[in-house]
Every structure is written in C-alpha cells, then in structure tokens.
C-alpha cells in the first residue's frame, strides 16, 4: 500500500494532474455557486467528457469538480442568502448576517479555510480509516437512521426563538417532505390533483424558495437596509489585511475546525445522509459548544467555518463506502461509481490492491484539489464578493430573482417547480412574520425522508420480532443515538439555566 501511495504521489505531482485539478475545482465552484445546479448535476454533465479520457484522468477531474462544487455553494449562501447546494444550508445562518454587516470578505475567507481543512481531513480519514470505517456503515440499520434524523430535529431548539413555534415549523417541513411518492411503499400522497406533484417538492426548490425569496422581497421593500453592507465593507477594505486577520482568528480555535471535519467525515460515510445533513449537525455542535453561543445566528464566524468544514469533509468520507463496498455515500458519489464501473473497476478490496496506484492517485488528487481551493477560492470568491457588494441593489435584486427562477427550473427542468419555489418563498416570508422560522422548515424538509424511511424500513425489517417497534429501542447503536437525542434536548435547557443564574449573579453583585 505504501509503495502504491508513493507512486501515486509521483503521478499527482505532474503538471497535467495539477492542471486537471485546477480546471475541476474552478468548474465545480462555478456550478456549485449556481443555485439549483448541484454537484451531482455538474458531474453528470462532465460524464461524456470523461468517456474519452483515461480512467485516472477522468476520475481526478471528477473528484476535483466535486470538491470545488461543494465549496462553491458557500459563496451564494454567504453573499445573497441562497445556498448554492443543499450542503451549504447552515452557512447562510451566519454567513448572510456577516454580509449584512459588511463582513462578507471575512465570511468568504472563513468558508475557504473551513472547506480546505475539511476537505483535507476527509481525505486523510479516507486513506487511514477506510477499511475500519466501512464496518460502521454496516452497523447502521434503518432504526439508526431514524434516530439520527430525530437527533437532527433537536437542532430546532437552537435555531428558533420560540421552541413551540420552532417545532411547528419543523413539522411543517416534515409535512412538505411527505408530498409525492412515499419513500417506502410507493404510495402517492398529497398531490392535490396535480399529476406532476407525484414528484414531490425537491429539497433544492424548497431551499431556494424559503431562503431566497424573503431576501429578494426584503431587498425590494427596503433597499436602504443594504447601506451597512456596502459602507462597512468599504471601510474594512481600506484597512486591509482582512485575509490574514481572519485566517489567524479561525486557526486560533482549531477544535471547531477539527470537530466539524470529523462530523463531516463520519456523516459522509453513512450512505443516505451526506452533506445536506452534515453541515447542519456540524453547525449545531459548533453552536452548542461555543463560548460565543449567543452570537450564533448574528454573524458568528465559527458558524460559517463549521458547516463548510463539514461539507467538504463529506467528500472524502463519502468515498469510503464507495471505494470499499461499492455503495455511493452521497448522490455525487453515484456518478463517480458509474465512471469506475465504465472503466471496469469494481469497488472493493482489489481496487486498493490491484489498482492501488490508480485508486490512491485519485484519492490524493482529491486532497490536492482541496488545497488548491485556497488560492483559487481567495481570488474567485473575493472577486465575486466584491462584485456583489458593488452591484447596486436595483440590479442585484432582479439578478438574484433571475438566478433563483432558472435554478429552481433546472433542478428537474420543470416550470411547475418555479411556481412552487415562489409560492413556498412567499409563504415562508409570511410564516416568518408570525414566528415560524424558515430555517426550521428547511430542517424538516431535509430530515423528513430519513426519518420516515428509517421508521417504515425498521418496522418492515423487524417483522420477524414479536413487537417490531421494540427494535427501535433494543439495538445498542440505537440506544447510543437516543442518548444523544436526550442530551441534545436537555443541553439548551441546562445552558439556559446556567446563563440565567450567571446573569442573576451579575445583577446581585
């Protein structure tokens, strides 16, 4: 294996590979930053190009593209509150407030640092732990996925000002996710007589609508709200040194980076979870353990670092089940799986033994791509940031609207999706006014399929037991996650009490 890695290093260090990685990262970033075009769509577009390539070059290009696309999704999340891919949902929570405060450059730098570190750690996890981690995949059954989804729901406590309304919003999201064909059983639900609603509401469409439409409405109704964004950004730019300051600041809290990357790697390994969940969990954990908890949601830089580190770590993590078991860990991995098969490469132990050089060249190139995102991202990301900040609001608002329209259309090439997107977005705007946070709704849409699928599959798979539902409480791993759920629920209460006591003490003294 070590010999193979050595040979792979020599292969990766050639100018051709370097150019391929650069091209892949740039292309990926462009596609990722476009709302509606996910990493998977971009990879599918690349597919015909790679048919003509050698297996190694084709795979390297795709790996670099995948890495870049996940990173690129953060740009629009930060700058215009539109996650470019579902992997950057949580990035909007603090990234966009930073933009509104004129700190978008720092947010872009934070996303870059997080993405590079996360990407590299994910790849290290892939090389060092692949065979070991593959066993984790097998231990996770439907029951565990169910509980993991429930664990994700406990995040609501953190993002909603009122717990009960937060829960209501989360359940609304879960309800949206049940529209269309049921994931288990193939039943058609809640189509309201519209045939096309069989397909349900895609996550990206809900995401674009709920996050971006309110942003557009705000920009049009109150264009003056952007004044701070523009002025403060100008002031900071005059001062200079923003990049160095921000990088130093983030690196001074390495635990956040490492924890988020570890979460991303682990969630990536689980097929059926992926970046859309990893970024949310990492954000929540960062918030829960941070000393600056109160600042989260109001432009906390660690709130940008955490999800971005996690989602790029998913890239490496997701390749663990792909390369060892032939199970794509995340949707984009399915395309890479196809490329492997097309070249007659069957995932499994022999991929590492007989095709070791090729496999490690691919893996190392993915890691190299993560590193390359630093220089490329700092130039392209900050360029985009400058362009957005300098665009007058009367052009920025309609341009965002145009991109959301075309983006929601492109998800399934469906004009109906554009209408759904706008209606959901306007509804979200109204619901926000009565206290139902759109972020909690999105959380429900993300987690709904996992929870429902795990629930129904768990019951079916345990039909042999006397009480099938008992299997949700008897499996050791399930119990472990249940403990996490309880902790997740109790934690906000505990800290709230602690803070209250602290405040009282201060008041007395």
């Amino acid at each position, binding site marked *: 294996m070590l010999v193979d890695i050595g040979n792979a290093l020599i292969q990766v260090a050639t100018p051709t590979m370097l150019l391929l990685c650069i091209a892949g990262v740039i292309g990926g970033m462009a596609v990722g930053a476009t709302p509606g075009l996910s990493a998977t769509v971009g990879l599918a577009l690349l597919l015909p190009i790679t048919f003509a390539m050698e297996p190694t070059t084709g795979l390297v290009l795709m790996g670099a593209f995948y890495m870049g696309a996940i990173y690129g999704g953060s740009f629009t999340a930060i700058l215009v509150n539109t996650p470019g891919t579902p992997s950057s949902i949580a990035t909007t929570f603090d990234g966009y407030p930073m933009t509104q405060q004129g700190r978008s450059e720092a947010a872009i730098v934070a996303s870059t640092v997080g993405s590079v570190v996360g990407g590299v750690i994910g790849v290290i996890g892939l090389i060092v732990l692949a065979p070991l981690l593959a066993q984790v995949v097998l231990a996770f059954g439907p029951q565990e996925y169910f509980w993991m989804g429930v664990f994700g729901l406990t995040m609501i406590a953190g993002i909603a000002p009122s717990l009960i309304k937060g829960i209501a919003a989360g359940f609304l999201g879960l309800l949206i996710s049940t529209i269309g064909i049921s994931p288990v059983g193939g039943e058609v639900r809640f189509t309201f007589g519209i045939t096309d609603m069989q397909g349900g509401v895609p996550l990206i469409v809900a995401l674009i609508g709920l996050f971006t439409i309110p942003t557009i409405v705000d920009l*049009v109704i109150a264009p003056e709200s952007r004044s701070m964004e523009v002025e403060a950004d100008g002031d900071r730019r005059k001062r200079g040194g923003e990049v160095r300051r921000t990088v130093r600041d983030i690196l001074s809290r390495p635990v956040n980076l490492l924890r988020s990357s570890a979460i991303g790697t682990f969630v990536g390994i689980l097929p059926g979870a992926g970046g859309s969940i990893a970024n949310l969990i990492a954000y929540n954990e960062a918030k829960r353990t941070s000393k600056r908890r109160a600042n989260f949601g109001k432009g906390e830089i660690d709130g940008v670092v955490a999800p971005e580190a996690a989602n790029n770590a998913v890239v490496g993590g997701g390749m663990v089940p792909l390369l060892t078991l032939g199970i794509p860990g995340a949707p984009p991995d399915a395309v890479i799986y196809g490329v492997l098969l097309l070249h007659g490469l069957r995932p499994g132990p022999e991929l590492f033994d007989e095709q070791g050089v090729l496999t490690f060249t691919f893996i190392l190139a993915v890691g190299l791509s993560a590193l390359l995102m630093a220089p490329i991202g700092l130039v392209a990301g900050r360029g985009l940031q400058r362009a957005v900040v300098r665009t007058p*609001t009367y052009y920025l608002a309609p341009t965002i609207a*145009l991109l959301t329209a*075309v983006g929601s*259309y492109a998800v399934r*090439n469906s004009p109906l999706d554009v209408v759904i997107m706008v*209606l959901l977005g306007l509804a979200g705007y109204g619901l926000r006014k009565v206290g139902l946070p759109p972020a909690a709704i999105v959380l429900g849409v993300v987690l709904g399929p996992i*929870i429902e699928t795990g629930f129904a599959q768990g019951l079916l798979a345990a039909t042999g037991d006397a009480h099938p539902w008992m299997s949700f409480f008897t499996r050791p791993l399930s119990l472990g996650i249940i403990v996490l759920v309880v902790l997740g629920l109790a934690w906000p209460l505990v800290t709230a009490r602690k803070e209250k006591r602290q405040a009282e003490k201060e008041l007395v003294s």
Partner: protein
Amino acid sequence: MRADLVCGGILIVIAGTFWVQRDTSDRLYAAFPDLLLVVLAVLGVVIIVQGLVRGERGAGEREVNRRMLAIVSVLLVAWALGMGLVGFTISGVVAFVIMALLVREGRPRLREVATDTAAGVVIVVACFLIFTRVLLVPLPVSTLIGM
C-alpha cells in the same frame, strides 16, 4: 398575540387541508404523515391558547410597506407563471426591468428605463445562453422569438 392567533390558525388550516387529501389505504405508510398532521393541529391549538393567555405584549414588529410587499409578491408569482407561458427570456427581461424600477423608487425616468432595459437584456440573454448552450438545460422558449 395577533401573530400567535394567525400562526395557530395557519397550522390548523394546513393540517386540515392535508387531512382531506390523505390516503388511508395502508396503515404503515400513512402513519408518518398522519402523525405529522395531528401534531401540527395540536401545536396550532397550543399556540393559539398560549397567545390568548399571554395577551398582548408590545413586541412592536417593524412595520413593512404593505403596498410594496403586495406588488413584489404579484411580480414574483407572475414571473414564475410567465416563464412557462411566454418563455424564459421575455418574462425575464420584463420582470427584471419592473423590479429594478421598483427598487429605484419614485417615478421612473426615461433614461433609467432605457439603461435598466439594456442591463436586463444583457443579463437575461447571457444567463439564457449559459444555461442552454453550456449547461444544456432546456429552458422554456417563446415561439415568437425562439429564445
């Protein structure tokens, strides 16, 4: 309080609308959505009761320009519908210009309309070309101008 009443009301209405649509053919597959609907309705009631008990608390929401909000909402919905009806470019340019003028506020001057139209055409057409030619997304086109 008003926000709570509206919020609770909305939840109950949504739960009710979906309840009518639900399919009762199989218990296992209906369990999850049924549970969601019940919880939503209950939460709606709780929020209403909470609002009534708590009474008015002067959490003064920032007043929004309702007229503007209505105009933007109509514009966005019309844009979404128009994309399927008259194609991406025509709906795009028209909506782009209207929105730009809305943001500029005040009575539109001829020069502004001209520059905004020019900007709209450039941005929309560029977007159209990138999506249809490079990314191969078959955007809806108008039969009149073919794009």
